[in-house]
């Protein structure tokens, strides 16, 4: 059953909420445009799949693409190209100039990366990593594609993906001496998991992990034995046209594989029709992997597992048993009813009543501001909000890499070393019960977030000329009408409405703020910081209006706006989405 859909026109607040979650963050124009749409109309735009592929990254050595052509150039080290590739990905997330659904797709790519983690350092090859990234992009919008494009087949493809074969040692898993690394993470992290986090399973026997057993891990490793990397990229997957790993049939364990009662005692055997003289062939091995993925995915728990992850990524980290039995179960049904395609599940979720205000009268069921932004969300969202651009990654690639390099370092200091998470399980914020996204916040990380905001505005002051920061006067003029700009209080509220996730019934009057999303005290603090610290004029609010209307002393105005943006964005509120 689809979830109950949100009815009616979204309005700017829900539109901004939807855009923050579905994409890497809205521009002010997008908030206004989407505000007049219904949820269904908004989803259609957000998932418009008639969009171009991203332009390929450039090798600074040659000035040309290298990920497809393999033209590495003479001097550039492989590590530099790795870095270039990751900067290119960050650049895609920050790019506000593309159609909105371009960002929806990049966000799903980001979800897949958080789910199927890889560390670039261990993969050690930018082309290999690029092909994985492109695999995610092909599977992000899967609704209108052939039936083969669905999450189940992505599980098979990722099992054969060169980057994954390297990262989890699948390329070293041979008959007689299996390497279990990938087999274990396939079960635990990618496909079926360990059940609802935080629920208390009954006592399990040694080696029984509720949804699978230790023996199943080892048996799965045998099914997966014999894969090896092909970094000549000559082995092509026929569905995606992307390179994949190959099969070393001599290293494949061709015996029967008996799984436990957790999988209904499934027996996986090579298909005799695919064998050659009784020996394994590439087809027979891949067929066994398909059987394995089919066996795992046919468990109800597998559909619940991926839907919980989608829910936590897009809505809120707390999944109770009640939620599991209602929303998550419905999502899982949608997944199964749509041939295991992911896109219909996300679309249905993002247009549901539940995604906005589950119970209209109870704020405790609101989902606004329930997620702590990842450093990538924070960085990309800020760039997009202010319409900031890096240099063109094709025509001005050297400057582009310098600029994104700075941002990437800042993200690292905020706790997200992109494509190099500390753990095999990925960024802690996406998997660790019970704190989840709270793992993005520590004294260090929070300080570096505020420092990032501060640096954005310093860039404009010429202290770090590599990235042009926002021109706040221009931004304000373009974003808000003249009357709003001229009234300091109206302007503060307008900024808040575009930046903060919760902002209903705003007022500067503490006598009437009982039903407001922010206290009047808070608003007055922003006003204080905006115009009174330091206080330049006898009547700062009147003087603000005069300067704005008369376009005089715009350097003062710019300074005040930068101060306002800093106090608004170096806040807990701005860390939420």
């Amino acid at each position, binding site marked *: 059953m689809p979830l109950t859909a949100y009815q009616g026109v979204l309005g700017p607040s829900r539109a901004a909420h939807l855009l923050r979650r579905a994409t890497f963050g809205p521009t002010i124009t997008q908030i206004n445009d989407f505000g007049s749409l219904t949820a269904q109309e908004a989803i259609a735009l957000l998932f418009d799949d008639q969009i171009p592929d991203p332009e390929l990254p450039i090798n600074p050595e040659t000035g040309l693409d290298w990920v497809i052509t393999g033209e590495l150039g003479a001097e550039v080290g492989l590590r530099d190209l790795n870095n270039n590739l990751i900067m290119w990905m960050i650049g895609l997330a920050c790019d506000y100039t593309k159609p909105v659904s371009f960002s929806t797709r990049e966000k799903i790519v980001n979800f897949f990366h958080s789910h199927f983690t890889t560390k670039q*350092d261990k993969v050690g090859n930018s082309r290999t990593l690029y092909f994985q990234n492109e695999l995610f992009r092909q599977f992000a919008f899967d609704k209108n594609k052939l039936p083969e494009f669905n999450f189940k087949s992505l599980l098979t493809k990722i099992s054969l993906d060169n980057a994954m074969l390297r990262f*989890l*040692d699948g390329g*070293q898993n*041979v008959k*007689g*001496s*299996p390497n*279990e*690394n990938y087999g*274990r993470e396939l079960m635990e992290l990618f496909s079926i998991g*360990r059940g609802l986090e935080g*629920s*208390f399973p*009954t006592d399990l026997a040694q*080696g*029984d992990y509720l949804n699978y057993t230790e023996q199943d891990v080892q048996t799965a490793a045998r099914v997966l034995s014999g894969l090896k990397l092909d970094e000549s990229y000559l082995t092509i997957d026929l569905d995606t046209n992307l390179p994949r790993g190959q099969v070393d049939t001599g290293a494949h364990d061709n015996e029967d594989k008996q799984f436990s009662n957790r999988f209904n005692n499934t027996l996986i055997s090579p298909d005799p029709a695919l064998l050659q003289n009784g020996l394994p062939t590439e087809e027979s091995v891949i067929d066994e992997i398909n059987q394995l993925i089919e066996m795992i995915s046919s468990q109800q728990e597998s559909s619940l597992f991926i839907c919980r992850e989608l829910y936590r990524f897009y809505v809120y980290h*707390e999944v109770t048993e009640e939620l599991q039995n209602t929303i998550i179960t419905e999502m899982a049904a949608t997944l199964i009813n749509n041939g295991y395609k992911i896109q219909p599940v996300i679309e249905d979720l993002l247009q549901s009543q539940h995604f906005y205000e589950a119970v209209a009268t109870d704020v*405790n069921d*609101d*989902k606004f*501001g*329930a*997620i702590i932004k990842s450093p990538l969300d924070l960085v990309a969202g800020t760039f997009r909000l202010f319409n900031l651009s890096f240099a063109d990654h094709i025509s001005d690639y050297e400057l582009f890499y310098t600029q994104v390099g700075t941002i990437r370092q800042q993200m690292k200091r905020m706790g997200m070393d992109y494509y190099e998470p*500390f*753990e*095999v*399980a990925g960024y802690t914020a996406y*998997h*660790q*019960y*019970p*704190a989840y*996204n*709270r*793992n993005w*916040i*520590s*004294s*260090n*990380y*929070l*300080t570096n977030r*505020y*420092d990032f905001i*501060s640096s954005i505005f310093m860039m404009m002051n010429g202290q770090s000329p590599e990235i042009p920061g926002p021109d706040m006067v221009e931004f304000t003029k373009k974003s808000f009408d003249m009357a709003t700009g001229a009234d300091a209080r109206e302007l503060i509220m307008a900024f808040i409405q575009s930046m903060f*996730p*919760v902002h209903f019934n705003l007022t500067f009057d503490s006598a009437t703020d009982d039903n*407001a*999303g922010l*206290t009047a005290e*808070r608003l007055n*603090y922003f006003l204080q*910081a905006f115009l009174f*610290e330091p206080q330049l004029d006898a009547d700062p609010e009147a003087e603000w209006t005069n300067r704005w209307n008369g376009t005089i002393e715009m350097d003062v105005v710019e300074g005040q706006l930068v101060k306002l943006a800093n*106090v608004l964005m*170096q*806040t*807990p509120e701005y860390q*939420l989405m």
Partner: protein
Amino acid sequence: MKRREFLRNTLLTGGSLTLGGFPLNLVAQESQLSKLAATSSNDRVLIILQLHGGNDGLNSLIPIDEYDQYYSRRANIAIPKTGTNRALIELDSTLPSEAKVGLHPDMGAMKQLYDRGRLGVIQGVSYANNNGSHFRGRDIWFMGGGANDYFSSGWIGRYLQQTYKPQIYPDDFPNTEMEDPLAIELGSDVSLVFHQNGNIPSSISLGGNPESFADLVDSLEGFVDEGVDPRGKPPVALNNSPYGKEINWILGLEDKTEDYAQRLRKVWDASSESSVTYPETYPFNAPKNSKRNPLSGQLQLIARLLEGGGAGQGVKTKVFLLRIGGFDTHADQVENYDPTMGVHAAQMYHISTAMKAFQDDLKARGLEEKVLTMTTSEFGRRIGSNGSYGTDHGTGAPMFLFGPFAKSGVLGKVPNLNLNNVEMQYDFKQIYAAILKDWFEVEDATIQNDILFRDYRNGNNENGGVYEPLDIIDSDVITSVNEFIKDKFHMKPCYPNPATDRVTFNYKINAFTSVRLVLSDMFGRYSNIIVDEIKKPGEYQVTFPVNNLPAGQYIYNFQAGPIKESNKLTIIK
């Protein structure tokens, strides 16, 4: 302007703000003096060193008497027993056969710590139904629970809660008795081990130099709190909404960042630099990312903060956490051309040398007896190696305890190498219980009821048996360490004494070490070196002619490894 008041209201679960009719903060204030008196005797510090990824215990502590079986299970990664200068280092030849182990050849510094009575080893540490998962495993260790538990608090978080109650974190901290963070995580994270139920974690993270950190905090608009800044305090009506919960979480940490940044800078500024040189890189071949010692800087930082420029000036922080990654050695744990080289070797070297420097540093600062360090790792690795010069996820593994109060020696036996996995000999919660009881001096009842939720010292275990208290923390450090060393390194009284023609010396050493035995007279007119060479562990006898020496009083000086001894010899004619 602080927001303690609102934090109290929003973060306390249960919502009762009075105790026996008195406002809670008054109760807290009144009891602070008595609390102080009760805790002042314990100024001890625990450092948790997390080996992330699952350490291969069998290549850290190599079985000696079972060596052939060890070799046959993991021939492609086995550390040689003899015949090369990179063979295992026998830890202690006085151990009984079933406990005899050798250290990885890059763990020489650990051997020195052992010989000085500053290292204890516990074999076969695990938990029932160890599940071989990295992140679940780590969470289980951090929360201090079992395989089926999902606590939202960590064992250190609960310990700190009990220690400081009725004061409640974060509202009642910092205060005049406790100006410092209750716990510090080196690096930037906020691990589950420090979490408290319904509360922000009781730790703060510290990435590096506290001075530059405090400067940065000072410079940022987001931490300015003059005037009427409610700093994001949401309207009360939103406190239980998802938004309210997340924003209160961030606010709590923002507040603590500001509180503690200046304090740590102050302590740091007053502290003196290390007089000890810490190791920087691994001297042999290893992948580039494994070369740098990741612990040295962090351990140095801890030593400085604990010192703070003089007695009583350092931080009173009870627990520190630091971590070292790279233990998930499914492939290429060792180099294919030499099983003693590679990633794991470098890790062993880093831990051993950094911990040796740290102990020396603490000693030089007069802090050594305050500090206990414990390693943890989410699981051990399989007994058999795999085909890719690595090891897959296993269960049990050894734990290391460092410090003069760590009971020297090896607890437990070499694992049964015929099995797939290293069997559990001790539940890690037994070790926690021993540390809580014997190191932090927490009451048994508190440990059982409020921290570990089971009696891991004397209660029933999960298999129908009974736990026994583990003797892993010394009660009297001077006596026990001396006895330990004396047992391993000593010179027996020479004989005959008085002597006329010749004298015989018997001594014992327990490490490859330089041995020096010098006989001299009381006035420095005569001196003769009898032994001066590097010897391997064992018992030795040396006979020296004295028939040419005039009668009188002589002294023989013996130096070997950690000991120096002088004794009298009388020569008569």
